[in-house]
């Protein structure tokens, strides 16, 4: 695989992972071009297309497009399932994942992707193994986090402090209410898997 992109229906790039050395300028150009091509396609069209000298495999989950560029000889269908397995991993980790999870926890999304794919090749296809690696990492810092943080009332999006720093508390709650839980944003907060009827 040469690279993987996640972008929204509005053309906002949410995650990019490059598996070959590419100059920043070229990256930006390729992202722009490719987003245009993919976003212009209609829902029933096939998930594969030829673009430059690459094969593009993409799939839309709710408001997000997952898009992989693979080499000529790579298998399209299995790439499609690479995407799906990645979505499942995100879903399992975030608990019914939505675009906002990926925005606010972008570093986690990168860590999960790194555990799953390395250098563009699959490292492990077992959901358990991949998540075990991630959760292990979380456990290492859990002690510290639990001291000062509690869960958001909606219990989904992110944690916030309940103790001494009041002004911080209110600002975080504000974030939570305005963008995630009340779903006033354009990005769909629904689970991407729910959309597919898989959750």
């Amino acid at each position, binding site marked *: 695989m040469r690279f993987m992109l996640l972008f929204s229906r509005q053309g906002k790039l949410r995650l990019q992972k490059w598996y070959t*050395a590419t100059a920043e300028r070229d990256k930006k150009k390729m992202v722009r071009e490719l987003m245009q091509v993919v976003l212009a396609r209609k829902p029933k069209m*096939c998930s*594969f297309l030829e673009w430059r000298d690459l094969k593009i495999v993409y799939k839309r989950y709710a408001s997000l497009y997952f898009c992989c560029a693979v080499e000529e000889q790579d*298998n399209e*269908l299995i790439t499609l399932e690479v995407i799906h397995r990645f979505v499942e991993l995100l879903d399992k980790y975030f*608990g019914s994942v939505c675009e906002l999870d990926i925005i606010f926890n972008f570093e986690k999304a990168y860590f999960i992707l790194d555990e799953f794919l390395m250098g563009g090749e699959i490292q492990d296809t*077992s959901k358990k193994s991949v998540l075990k690696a991630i959760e292990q990492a979380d456990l290492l810092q859990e002690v510290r986090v639990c001291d000062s943080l509690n869960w958001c009332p909606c219990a989904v999006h992110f*944690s916030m402090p309940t103790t001494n720093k009041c002004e911080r508390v209110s600002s975080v709650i504000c974030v939570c209410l305005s963008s995630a839980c009340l779903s006033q*944003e354009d990005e769909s907060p629904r689970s991407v898997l729910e959309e597919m009827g898989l959750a």
Partner: protein
Amino acid sequence: MPAVSKGDGMRGLAVFISDIRNCKSKEAEIKRINKELANIRSKFKGDKALDGYSKKKYVCKLLFIFLLGHDIDFGHMEAVNLLSSNKYTEKQIGYLFISVLVNSNSELIRLINNAIKNDLSSRNPTFMCLALHCIANVGSREMAEAFAGEIPRILVAGDTMDSVKQSAALCLLRLYKTSPDLVLMGEWTSRVVHLLNDQHMGVVTAAISLITCLSQKNPDEFKTCVSLAVSRLSRIVSSASTDLQDYTYYFVPAPWLSCKLLRLLQCYPPPEDGAVKGRLVECLETILNKAQEPPKSKKVQHSNAKNAILFEAIALIIHYDSEPNLLVRACNQLGQFLQHRETNLRYLALESMCTLASSEFSHEAVKTHIETVINALKTERDVSVRQRAADLLYAMCDRSNAKQIVAEMLSYLETADYSIREEMVLKVAILAEKYAVDYSWYVDTILNLIRIAGDYVSEEVWYRVIQIVINRDDVQGYAAKTVFEALQAPACHENMVKVGGYILGEFGNLIAGDPRSSPLVQFNLLHSKFHLCSVPTRALLLSAYIKFINLFPETKSTIQEVLRCDSQIRNSDVELQQRAVEYLKLSSIASTDVLATVLEEMPPFPERESSILAKLKKKKGPGAVSAGELEEGKREGGEVNGAERPGDNAAIASTPSPSADLLGLRSAAPVSAAPVSAGSLLVDVFSEAGPAASTAGVNDDGFLSCSSALSSAPPSVVSEDPAPPLPESDELLNKFVCKNNGVLFENQLLQIGIKSEYRQNLGRMYLFYGNKTSVQFVSFSTTLNVQLKPVDPLVEGGAQVQQVINIECLSDFSDAPLLNIKFRYGGALQNLSLKLPVTINKFFQPTEMSSHDFFQRWKQLSQPQQEAQKIFKANHPMDTEVLKAKLLGLGTALLDNVDPNPENFVCAGVIQTKAQQIGCLLRLEPNAQAQMYRLTLRSSKDTVAKRLCELLSEQF
């Protein structure tokens, strides 16, 4: 409990992200970012030492800003500091930042490498994995230099944890891809192959990607992976859908691993070991069978995973190209997919069938789906699927269906997407030329092409139609008539005007008898387009006019008047002005004879590879590849026929560009030199001055006349006894001394192709008898002066039958077996005998040896009868690479650094016969100055040395 709650601690980051998202405009966002950058900068520069948590938070913010698309020029140092933190998440963020934002700051790289080194030797598996991920993500040469030696050790060490092994394998793969020279093969390579046997499926999955890549570059060193891969695959394929637990994906056992195993096998030829091969064929059959079973789940993931394996298996079957049964089954399966409701499957089926179409075993089976594919071209809503359908039609096209396919492609072209029109035009043009039986059809097709998609008709296409019309007298009148009619359309494309101008200028006389297309009518028609055309086309038309003066003296005054008018003779374009002035002068001072000589009909163009094909090849479409192969096959056939075409090799180099060159009249040349100059300009254009050879189509015409002669010949004339071998059979045999596959024989009726493989004293040869006619061959039989399995007595028109011959070399031999072929075609008995290209060298096993060993053995074989020597003149150019290829094709090992003279070649090999093994040494001394070779063979058996010497002396 949602898992997310566990890790997230950076509330400042969340606030920042949320702020950015609330920004109403781009300016507000930039303002907010600049504020944050200033804040972070001051924190980093501040006197107070930051704790790890804050550092992590700020680095993460910087990363976020960078990923939004803004430049980041600081923070690298803080990220590097995080690497040496002993808190996992701090380290993790540090590595993430480095992976995304690393630049080749050498000072920093040294620090990063140090941190990585520490983590790699920490024996803490999570830290080791982080470090390996970082190396794989950055993958720079500096990192390869620092770690390429260490990682293989981690990979194969006995005490490495599975998760670390997985990361190490893929990390090494990345380094190998970026800097293959730094990853040295060694003792670890054999142990890597055995990871295919690992108990942990994750380790196998990761390792196989590495093994596949390494095998592509070093197939011999990784040969043992074939049998391991087959047994692993067999275990997966035969396992129940729940056996593999977490590695079962929607009821499909280990789909990723299966695909990768099948992919790995595609790096190698079919397994030689019968048992392994049997097992593999069984696997492939099981996979094909499973495709027919009802699905275990309705979910698309289930069918995708299952079909991913199926397509990979089909790719392997196509790669082997040796199991007709499997190929036909694969084709049938794809045929089902062509009508599947999933667009993805239809797309892939079309794509995969394209490669199947080029296999001789399945070409016919693919052709049966023509209606479905045409339908796809017409009705698919997705342009990328239609594109695949067009590719497939191109690949499945042959003489039998060319008219239908070309017609369909033409009608599709009228509505085709702009993005694919140019390629479609090229394909139609190629097919029309390649399969043209009658050239009026060809001319019609190309003119239609210009009419429908004139804008997309490149110069190559219209050059080509003119070349063909010039070279073929029988179509010239028709071409003139058709193009004349086409020009009458009120709006016609400029390319049509170009073709019209050229063809009427050359052959307008052929239709001038008809009052409706009298010379003046022709001229007026052309001239009515003149003002709408671009400069190059006008220039071409001016040349057509001067030719008209020669062809039809009655038009002289009209044309002179046109040339004389100010818009021509004073044209601001130098080229047009010059032509007008010179043509006017030429027409008024030259006598009719001189004019006739200057403007003589164009000589035929030398035959060469179609420039259109060269152009399509450059476009590298999947269909184009198979076209190239077909072309190659055709070329080989031509050589066997002894009709080597002079232009074939030099073809791609030159594409005629300015139209004036094609005309051969760039500037009005001095009268006396004119005909010569036309010729020499052609030389410039084609870089090939050979005499005009027969065009590709001559064979067909020859066949047409020939077939009637044959059917009227009384059958009794030909004897029933095997005919004596054809006079050229020795020559045909010689073509196969250094190669194993190709066309053995071809005439107007029959083509015999050969594929063969040899191993030790055994060989297998596939003979393909292709009926080139549209009529059945009956009583088809072949006999060999040894025993032969009978072949199907009927060969349908256009069809091909296959015959397999197993060969065992019992002892050494000189004479090739004789193959006699008899069949009735239209009542006439055809009887021909050929030498089967089995020569003693086919049973060579290469032997590597040192210089010392070689000369020692050379001396041991010093009796006069053990040596055969021949000095002969070079028949082919003395190209070192070609010589090497031929010597390798001979089957011996080519030994480097043995002969003190580097110009010379020495080879060694052992001929394996059932009775004995015969060692042979060879030395070939080229003398470039004299264009001579001296060939010396020494062998433990005198007859062998003699025979090899005879065979080889014909090769160079």
